[in-house]
């Protein structure tokens, strides 16, 4: 598939502060890419650069093979849905949708037609004559998407939806966006700090930190094979358990614990005596019958038990480190109880102690 958006060696600095550093990113046509990272990592800045709302310091941006590095936002073939939706308060929904087309001097009949089509796709026909202040949160988002849709653009950009929306509405909006992508098959770039949103929406996720992309891959890749400790720690809730140890006899060794690694598919050769981090996801710790087949068995004492309905989170200690285990909600466990556990080498991640890169 052809690339829809290409970003080449992009730099952006505000004065002496480098926000984006030599960033490269190719986004395929029709792909749903999520830019994920904690606040201040430069994800929104990158989106603004693609939209042309920020002038880049160095590098190039291509959209559909055309170099748009110096182009005005309106000439780039992008539509943008803003965090606060940014609907024009004094215009009706119809006015909001047609504003961009009027500026582009599109003939009146075509404006009508395009507005009608976008309204149909988003099911906002009954709202066309209303003002934004008379709309609910979900309706506002649909109008904001509609404003991007009527422009018949190649790429849709979504800045992170407001985190102050209640959880139910967010879930609903997420599904709406996913459905829309399946229907339209546009290229979409979506910025968020919410990993659940990223995992559920994305074809590929780019995890950013300090203006760099730490890992770019499908949600499954990122979840199962995090390329470094930062990504491993960032993705997953509750986050991964980490423990520091050494490689001895092809085993991860910490204190009395020796976890055999013959089932671990290492990227590079594991050196004898190498200091490493081991990362174990709370949901990958096995209990009950599955322990029999596990690579390593141990017993821990439940310290705090947090029932969350579908799951139960158990806080324990393993090799002198706090250790979280996620169990099925039905699993019988109480605080202070002993819990036999098993760990499979195929589900753990090993990182070099210094570089924190995956081994």
């Amino acid at each position, binding site marked *: 598939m052809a690339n829809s958006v290409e970003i080449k060696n992009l730099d952006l600095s505000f004065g002496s502060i480098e926000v984006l550093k030599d960033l490269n990113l190719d986004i395929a046509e029709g792909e749903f890419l999520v830019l994920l990272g904690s606040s201040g990592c430069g994800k929104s800045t990158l989106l603004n650069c693609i*939209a042309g709302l920020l002038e880049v310091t160095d590098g190039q941006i291509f959209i559909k093979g055309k170099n748009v590095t110096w182009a005005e936002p309106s000439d780039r073939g992008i539509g943008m849905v803003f965090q606060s939706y940014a609907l024009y308060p004094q215009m009706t929904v119809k006015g909001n949708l047609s504003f961009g087309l009027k*500026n582009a001097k599109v003939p009146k009949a075509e404006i009508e037609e395009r507005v009608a089509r976008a309204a149909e796709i988003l099911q906002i026909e009954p709202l066309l004559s209303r003002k934004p202040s008379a709309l609910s949160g979900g309706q506002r988002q649909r109008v904001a998407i509609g404003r991007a849709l009527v422009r018949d653009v190649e790429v849709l950009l979504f800045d992170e939806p407001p985190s102050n929306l209640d959880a139910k509405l967010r879930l609903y909006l997420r599904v709406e966006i996913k459905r829309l992508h399946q229907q339209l098959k546009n290229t979409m770039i979506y910025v968020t700090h919410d990993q659940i949103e990223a995992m559920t929406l994305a074809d590929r996720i780019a995890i950013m930190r300090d203006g760099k992309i730490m890992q770019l891959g499908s949600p499954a890749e990122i979840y199962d094979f995090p390329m470094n400790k930062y990504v491993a720690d960032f993705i997953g809730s509750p986050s991964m358990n980490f423990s520091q140890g050494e490689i001895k006899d092809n085993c991860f060794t910490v204190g009395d614990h020796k976890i055999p690694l013959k089932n671990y598919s290492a990227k590079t050769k594991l050196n004898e005596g190498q200091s490493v981090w081991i990362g174990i996801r709370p949901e990958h710790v096995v209990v009950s019958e599955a322990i029999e087949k596990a690579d390593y068995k141990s017993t821990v004492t439940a310290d705090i038990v947090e029932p969350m309905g579908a799951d139960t989170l158990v806080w324990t200690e393993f090799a002198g480190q706090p250790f979280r285990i996620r169990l099925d909600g039905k699993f019988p466990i109480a605080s202070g109880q002993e819990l036999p556990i098993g760990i499979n080498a195929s589900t753990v991640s090993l990182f070099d102690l210094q570089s924190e890169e995956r081994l």
Partner: protein
Amino acid sequence: MTDASVSTLKGPSGPKPRRVFSSTNIMIYGTLLVVCLYYLLPLYVMIVTSLKGMPEIRMGNIFSPPVEVTYEPWVKAWAEACTGINCDGLSRGFWNSVWILVPSVFLSIAIASVNGYALANWKFKGSEVFFTILIFGAFIPYQVMIYPIVILLRESGDGITNIIRLFDSDASKFRLMGSVWGLVIVHTIFGMPILTLLFRNYFTSVPEELFKAARVDGAGFWGIYFQIMLPMSLPIFVVAMILQVTGIWNDFLFGVIYTKPDTYPMTVQLNNIVNSVQGVKEYNVNMAATLLTGLVPLVIYFASGKLFVRGIAAGAVKG
């Protein structure tokens, strides 16, 4: 169970009762009343005096209401009072003031709002420095600039005359100094720092994403200004208008310096009527003239008091 419900019924419930004549209330309203009287008394004296004839005024009871109400002083103040050789009363000054006021208010607000919009949304290299310099202007006592402006108006008037004479060699001399237009320019310039600050702060409080959305939608500098920003900022325009109308109408110093007797604004003419040294002091006419001059700002305040407060508060929230 029943015991508990009875005890809750006995205890405090509902709104806490407040005494109307508490000592705090008496203090607050008493003070307010005294201050109110203190400020309203001069106004009362003015109104009462303006409705008396001269013989009644000479009796000296300035607080007593008029025995015989006469509107003669008002008519005289408006249409007959003499300043120098003109004896057409304040009406001339009133219309001069209107001709100064309308273009000054329009021009200063138009320019300052675009200034504020550009400084808030289209930041350019050095825009912050530019803004600081502009605001600095608000802190320089403007008396310092009176003489330089006299020269500036005189010279630029001559310059314009020269340009006109290129096309029409018989054209009469064009004057900025002494004309209404010169004063309009001065008022526009001196309104700039405070109005730009007002507009910039207001436009800064408009969500930036709205501006970005309009850019993605292909609107340019003027498109965004007229179609997005302007319809959203009517309150601040009303505030600016009130500030400018009262400020320019009440101006005396610029009016007396940069105009000539024919084009004196109302305030200057009022001064000339009240401070004329020849003849009898007609206190009733003076009072009527003063009230007439003060009427425009008063009406503005009374009509838009609420909007005024709201606008000032809106501008002060951010920035």
